[in-house]
């Protein structure tokens, strides 16, 4: 997601060289300038600059799709639209389950069962598609050291005794759950940034962050001035990264948080 260099926007070589003398090398730099500034740095007339703006914009703008095309694409693969939670009532209210391709937040006062729910979703994601799972790996980012592998095996064995009938099956399930312990906001953000390649290489189908609130609370005391904006910055940056990953790879995200503010 690094800013695109101007030569990839099909601008002429000499124009790129001229612009780089003004420290304008990326499309981001170009689009942030006003028209008058652009006329000055490119040395071109108003109309030409407008044409250049369109050219650079074309290189950066997203592709158009109609709502109909989006619907058709979802219809082609209906089972991949949701991950069922295996709780009938909850699935009904959610219209199918946890939606793939977007962020889902689970919040409650402490002790209600959020971590238990996340552990169970991890088991479900590793199940084959025929059983309502996603047949994939899980990335579990744990900030509270609340994850218990024994509990994971216990849930799997009790919930699906027919499927996990051998130790071999249990171990293959636990092998597909990748646990990362991150204790600071910075390391959580860094971990999220590195996820793109892991998702592809490990065939990840579910990402859980347990929990967002604990790292944020530890580091940002909202009574101190200025912390509120930094905290919002961190949360917003994390959220946009996660949304990008969720949509790009069509995976559901579970983010836990207690009552924040």
């Amino acid at each position: 997601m690094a800013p695109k260099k101007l030569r990839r926007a099909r601008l002429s070589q000499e124009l790129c060289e001229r612009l780089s003398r003004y420290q304008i090398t990326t499309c981001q730099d170009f689009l942030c300038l006003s028209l008058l500034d652009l006329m000055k740095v490119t040395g071109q007339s108003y109309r030409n600059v407008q044409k250049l703006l369109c050219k650079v914009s074309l290189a950066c703008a997203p592709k158009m799709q109609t709502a109909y095309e989006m619907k058709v694409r979802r219809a082609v693969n209906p089972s991949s639209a949701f991950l069922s939670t295996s709780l009938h009532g909850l699935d009904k209210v959610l219209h199918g389950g946890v939606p793939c391709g977007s962020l889902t937040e689970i919040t409650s006062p402490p002790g209600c069962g959020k971590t238990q729910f996340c552990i169970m979703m991890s088991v479900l994601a590793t199940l084959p598609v025929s059983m309502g799972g996603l047949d994939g790996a899980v990335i579990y980012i744990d900030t509270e050291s609340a994850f218990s592998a024994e509990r994971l095996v216990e849930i799997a064995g009790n919930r699906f005794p027919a499927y996990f009938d051998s130790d071999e099956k249990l171990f293959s399930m636990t092998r597909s759950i990748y646990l990362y312990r991150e204790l600071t906001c910075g390391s959580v953000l860094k971990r999220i940034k590195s996820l793109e390649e892991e998702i592809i290489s490990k065939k990840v189908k579910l990402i859980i962050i347990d929990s967002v609130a604990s790292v944020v609370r530890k580091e940002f005391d909202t009574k101190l001035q200025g912390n509120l904006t930094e905290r919002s910055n961190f949360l917003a940056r994390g959220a946009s990264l996660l949304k990008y990953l969720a949509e790009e790879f069509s995976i559901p995200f579970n983010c836990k948080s207690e009552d924040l503010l």
Partner: protein
Amino acid sequence: NKGNSFLFQRKPLACLPLAPALRARLVAAGFQTAQELLDTGPCGLSKEIGISKEEALEALQVVRQECHSDATQTAGAPGTSRKCTALELLEQEQAQGFIITFCSALDNILGGGVQLTKITEICGEPGVGKTQLCMQLAVDVQIPECFGGLAGEAVFIDTEGSFMVDRVVDVATACVQHCQLIAEAHQEEDHLKALETFSLESILSHIYYFRCRDYIELLAQVYLLPDFLSEHSKVRLVVIDGIAFPFRHDFEDLSLRTRLLNGLAQQLIIVANDHKAAVILTNQMTTRIGQSQSTLVPALGESWGHAATVRLIFHWDNNQRLATLYKSPSQKESTIPYHITVSISFKMEIQRWEQSVSCEELFRDL
């Protein structure tokens, strides 16, 4: 046309859209008006300033273009002129259609619905229903004229990823059913004919969706909007769902942010006017920390408040959703309640669903 060319003769160089370096050279060489340039001709110009003949010719063509567009403006040619009398404007406004929201209370406080050629901003906390209204409007703008709609198309620019196709399908299906009921009741020829082309598939095909992941993609998309709307001339609604989201993080330089937002607002006003479209922006709320208490205010600062013509604020009062018309040039400030329903005919409320499934039931199985 002696009068026009006299005015044009006197037009100083600073008003011409030439490249700055070229203009500097012309001024240094002693040129003062546009007419002087035209009289000199390309060869003379190139010798005097020391530029190539091609560059000189290009400059003269720019100057001539300006002269031509000036002349048509003073002659009052329609389309190029942006001035008219208030009476002409009144006639235009009265003939103008609105995009209805299917919530009669909301349509009432807006004066009929969402207005074309204006920017309407919807502010509110997460979950209050801003995206729902946007999706509803993207369907409603397409209602055929015989049913009281605009028969238009919609552009949906999404920065937060909140657009849910399945929900749009629900809304569109309900809208088609609503029109079918009207057609059955009235049994008119044009109603039945319109229903032939007003289907779920056609509604979805005329919502043009762009997913902008950061502010650069948003800026680029807005620069390209005029061309897109010229190619798709039936578009009557442009939605930007989440104008605040891309600008709220990674912006240390607040003055750059203000400048970019102002630029966006200006471009959107031009788009709204040139293409007779309604522009809807959704905005988040932020906490303003005051002396003794903190209040929720629309995000992006005070100067952004000037961008939209009409401002709606969606908020909660206990379990009831309320919409307040906060800013409008023609309607008075008022607040109305609204609901988000599954469909008009069934009238089931999503809130009732949420309450009926209790927590114990959910966790019994765990």
